[in-house]
């Protein structure tokens, strides 16, 4: 069976009780305007978008809220706990996000992208606090998608703590360095999918270009979450398109079964019938 890119209809990305038609999840941060954001979200093809929870600006010059710019009936919102450095704060923020999403009657009310960071310079996740927060949020009924490093041991701990998805970073948040250690992502996949092939693993953070998305999908991850690579591209709209195509290309490439890498060449043209003199 062969499939062209245009015909390709993928299976949905299943995370907890959610089923997403696109395996690309995009963030809503860092856009120059809400209009540009809304257009980029549409061009990305994503049906799930991440949002952050922050203090309401009580005196706002423009008086506009993100929620005025997003069609919340069209997207499943995935609230994050970005900016939290302790499990306690992350749990608090997750509950506030759930409260807002419940009021909006958005299906994203029952899940959270858990982010518990260790310091502001690297934005690397704090594994101990992340495991702790995961346990508490799972006990509180949340489906927890855990942002974590690419450490396979931590990844397994998070799954055991009840995470609905483990989301290893390709490289630091917003760094655009791509997937720095594909071998670790491979081991994460082995650990997390052992005896549980449908367990969703999503690469979150570090993507800089479309090739990073394709490369991640070729490793066999189930989805990619990105924000800055689109929002801060010189042309966010065409980059959103590039990401959408790269995701499908990488996914098809993975499903199609790539050839193994070999040290030496193998000729593509037949050996037989060659008329030239061959070197020994």
């Amino acid at each position: 069976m062969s499939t062209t890119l245009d015909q390709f209809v993928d299976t949905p990305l299943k995370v907890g009780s959610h089923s997403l038609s696109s395996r690309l999840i995009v963030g809503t941060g860092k856009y120059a305007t809400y209009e540009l954001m809304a257009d980029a979200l549409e061009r990305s093809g994503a049906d799930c978008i991440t949002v952050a929870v922050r203090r309401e600006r009580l005196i706002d010059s423009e008086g506009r809220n993100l929620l005025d710019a997003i069609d919340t009936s069209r997207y499943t919102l995935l609230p994050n706990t970005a900016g939290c450095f302790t499990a306690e704060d992350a749990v608090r923020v997750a509950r506030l996000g759930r409260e807002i999403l419940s009021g909006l009657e958005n299906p994203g009310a029952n899940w959270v992208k858990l982010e518990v960071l260790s310091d502001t310079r690297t934005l690397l996740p704090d594994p101990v606090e992340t495991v702790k927060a995961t346990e508490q949020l799972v006990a509180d009924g949340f489906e927890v998608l855990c942002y974590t490093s690419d450490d396979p041991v931590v990844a397994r701990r998070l799954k055991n703590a009840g995470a609905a998805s483990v989301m290893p970073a390709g490289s630091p948040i917003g760094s655009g360095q791509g997937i720095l250690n594909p071998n670790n992502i491979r081991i994460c996949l082995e650990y997390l999918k052992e005896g549980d092939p449908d367990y969703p693993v999503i690469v979150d953070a570090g993507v800089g270009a479309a090739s990073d998305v394709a490369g991640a999908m070729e490793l066999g991850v189930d989805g990619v979450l990105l924000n800055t690579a689109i929002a801060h591209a010189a042309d966010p709209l065409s980059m959103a398109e590039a990401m959408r195509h790269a995701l499908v290309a990488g996914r098809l490439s993975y499903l199609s079964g790539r050839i193994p890498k070999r040290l030496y060449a193998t000729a593509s043209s037949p050996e037989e019938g060659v008329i030239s003199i061959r070197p020994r």
Partner: protein
Amino acid sequence: MAELQLSVNGETHSMSGERTIAQLLGDLGVTAKHVAVELNGELVPRTQHADQTLTNGDCLEIVTLVGGG
């Protein structure tokens, strides 16, 4: 009328008279549907906003959704 001093999102707000959370949100011009409210560190579900009366010295956090990754 009794003075009501509240900390709202880290800033002090002074007003006179009694207020519920729902009334405060109205005074502040906040779209209730867009926010969640914490009173002294505890989440107050929106179903209780109309009944929850505020007292002098209360500390509130009013949060909404913003762009994020």
